[in-house]
């Protein structure tokens, strides 16, 4: 136990200020905080030091060493708290790119790497089969690769409406629409996806 509580003087604060700034910067770098948060972080660290100052024993070390340890531990706890908060309020989008591939076509989005077990179906307690989901995803990718890029808007339209509605809503004539549809069926057959055709 310390012999007597140590009171901070202005001289002590001047000596601790560079340490405080250094540790705050370190914590902000770890937690990827913006620069405008620095003063709040410094205040938080300083308050923590003041609360722990009764535990400081000058016989065991200098005030700078004690303050460094206190600032660093507080910084770690702050960064951890921030990480948990970010996990809770994860402000990311499904189309956010998560793999830094040089080729834009090869980049993966969050929606593509998100496992089915973390999907909404599992979240809401709906039944899901991981193997079936993977097979479905592979089939869909294979089917997408088999189709002409001109047919992608057509597929998108058909996923939301029936053929008659898509003809009425689309820009293609009826004959062109059904010709493209026939072409898509033949391409899917040739790709070995007879069930989709």
């Amino acid at each position, binding site marked *: 136990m310390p012999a007597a509580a140590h009171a901070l003087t202005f001289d002590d604060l001047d000596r601790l200020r560079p340490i405080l700034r250094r540790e705050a910067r370190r914590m902000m770098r770890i937690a990827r905080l913006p620069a405008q948060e620095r003063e709040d972080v410094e205040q938080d660290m300083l308050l923590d030091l003041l609360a722990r100052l009764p535990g400081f024993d000058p016989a065991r070390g200098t005030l700078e060493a004690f303050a460094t340890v206190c600032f660093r531990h507080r910084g770690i706890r702050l960064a951890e708290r921030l990480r948990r908060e970010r996990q809770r309020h994860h402000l990311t989008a499904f189309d956010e790119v998560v793999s830094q591939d040089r080729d834009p076509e090869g980049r993966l989005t969050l929606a593509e790497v998100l496992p089915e077990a973390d999907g909404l179906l599992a979240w809401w307690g709906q039944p899901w089969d991981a193997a079936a989901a993977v097979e479905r995803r592979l089939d869909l990718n294979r089917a997408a*690769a088999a189709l002409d890029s001109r047919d*992608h808007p057509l597929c998108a339209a058909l996923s939301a409406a029936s053929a008659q509605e898509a003809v009425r809503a689309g820009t293609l004539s009826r004959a062109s629409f059904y010709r493209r549809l026939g072409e898509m069926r033949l391409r899917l057959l040739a790709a070995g996806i007879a069930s989709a055709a």
Partner: protein
Amino acid sequence: MDSLASLPPPAAPLTEAALCRWLGAAAPGDAITYFRGALARSLCPQLDLLDANQRVALARLAQRAWTLAEAGLAHLVQRRYGFEDFEYLLIARPRPRRAVTNLLPRILAAAA
């Protein structure tokens, strides 16, 4: 002389859909004959070797075989048997592992 009942039924003519379905299920190296004869002569309307419907169907089939070959899914080969007697073969090629990457997200984005 054989009676009509004992003769094997004539094979149904190959269609575009049947050709595509066969290719979809074929292993690399499998071959199918999609025409026997002289294709260019048979397709010529002036020679009138086939009736109009048959000619159109054959033209579509030949064009489909060409399209499949251009897409890299098959080889087109001819085997000569005699004067103006060729066998037109379509041979399945090994499929690319992944022809195009990440097309599905784009389709889904278009659907949204």
